[in-house]
């Protein structure tokens, strides 16, 4: 699904280090100032991310087609964007919901995003 910036090894290292710390140093908490945290938690992104609400309710409302057209768009325009499939946020009445996060800006959510972009 989503490819993490910096490839697999950074993610693996992040997971193993933090799980180890949780177990061995229970008073320790995640270092939110570290670079890998910022990347994984998407506090810092260097390419746009498109999140598609793709739970069963989202698919029922047409998220499958939305997802496909987002992927097609990215493919034909050859732009570098991460696409993430999400679960249901609860506002099923507004599905398909698509969130967009562009570097430097807050993540913003749009409702009823059928195939158009």
């Amino acid at each position, binding site marked *: *699904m989503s490819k993490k910036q910096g490839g697999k090894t950074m993610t693996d290292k992040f997971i193993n280090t933090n799980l180890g710390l949780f177990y061995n140093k229970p008073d320790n908490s995640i270092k939110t100032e570290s670079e890998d945290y910022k990347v994984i938690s998407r506090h810092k992104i260097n390419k746009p991310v498109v999140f598609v609400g793709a739970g069963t309710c989202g698919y029922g409302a047409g998220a499958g087609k939305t997802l496909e057209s987002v992927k097609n768009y990215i493919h034909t325009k050859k732009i570098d964007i991460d696409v993430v499939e999400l679960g249901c946020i609860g506002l099923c009445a507004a599905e398909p919901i698509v969130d967009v996060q562009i570097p430097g800006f807050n993540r913003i959510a749009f409702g009823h995003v059928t195939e158009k972009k």
Partner: protein
Amino acid sequence: MEIPTDIETLYQFPTENSRSWESVLNFTDYPYFKNQKRFVLQNCGILNPVSIAEYIAFGGYSSYLKTIKSNKPNEVCEMVEESGLRGRGGGGFTTGTKWKFAHNTEADQKYLICNADEGDPGAFMDRAVIEGDPHRLLEGMMLAAYAIGASKSYVYIRAEYPLAIKRLKIAIEQAKKYGLIGENIFGSEIDFEIKVKVGAGAFVCGEETALINSIEGKRGMPKPRPPFPAVKGLFGKPTIINNVETLSCLREIIPTGVEEFKAIGTERSKGTKVFALSGKVNLTGLVEVPMGTTIREVIFDIAGGIPNNKKFKSVQIGGPSGGCITEENLDIEVDYDSLISIGAMMGSGGLVVMDEDTCMVDVAKFFMDFIQRESCGKCIPCREGTRRMLEILEDITHKPVTSSENEALERFKGVTQLEKLGKVIKETSLCGLGQTAPNPVLSTIKWFREEYEEHIFDRKCRANVCTELRTFTIDVDNCTGCTVCAKKCPTDAIIGSRKTPHFIVEDKCISCGTCYDVCKFNSIVIS
């Protein structure tokens, strides 16, 4: 950077060092979310459900790893009991107390089962949690298994949930890869294994003893209790069965959240509850609110009330086992005991909203039809009684064969019979399905008796839902004699010659409404 104007903007998520969008509400101020308390759902729809790294970045698996390092299993049972957490699968039994039975039973093997059967029509909370945040459920299962001493566990999930099954399996693989599932977890000498068991989706298989039978490869039929599964369950071993939502609360409670959890809710119902809202309500979807929120707040303040300026009539809570809440009870709090006091129940969390266009007898019939098909057949009162209840409801809502007083009397006996039968079924059925099956009927009779009486005596359905009770006549002043209705009528009930007013033969008319739909001159009158 500008937002395109031809798109519906919802909300934004404030992020450190990032510019915000002008005139876009923050997620937490958005009306639908503002009055919610997202506890179990906090990551749903926000984090990537199949990324263990993202889950960990937001603290995931810290509860589990810290607990197995620093707390003994009995301490964990204590914490959960102290928190006041009660089962979210319907019964509302205190989770910590149930765990202690299993914890205190000596055995060479114990099991944990996550009940993700979710058979109640109108409920989809558990599906959404698994699709949106499967790691939260896994962490909850790990904590529960540790507390009771179970090294093996199952997730019992219905085959109708393919996406949830897929994401759950991915999450399990990820947890295995990083040593959270397997043997000797992080050198703690704890072993833990999770298997996914896909069920065929029978409602009765959500009942715990039937579910155990189903996992054992037997027919999904309930067994008498005791012995309770906590003492003698799956393969005869101590087994704890918990609902998806119950388990998904745990990482917020253990090891440090007991006080915070206790502070939310009412005297005897703590924490939050997730509801799946459907039916005649503006914003259908998932809502998570603190216990103690009123049903009115959920339907009107959060979900935006009833569409098209229609009047609210009732809301069905707890699906086929539950009851209805009427206008006068709308200020009831979400609380296990208060809901029971008005003849309803918490149930698993389905809320079906009904407006003035809904017929309550028809609603009762819908649930009775469901139950009557889902009864496993073991107990005669449940198997035959629910069938008979359905037949009576059908008599009430269908066209009379004759219009004699006698028949009306038979029908009137119907309601008394429904009440009597309901009582017997409740008292003599083995499992919760039969014990609660008459609830939708009894509760609609209690609150909407006049609608039953209208159906019986006046042969009228005020919502015009029971189509067979309509009578159709032709307004001779409007009728041009075009013959369209006569041609379309499936039973040839309309007579008359071309260019002269037509006439409907009442005995032949089956009240299908075809003539009403096809007449271009508005000359068909429904009464």
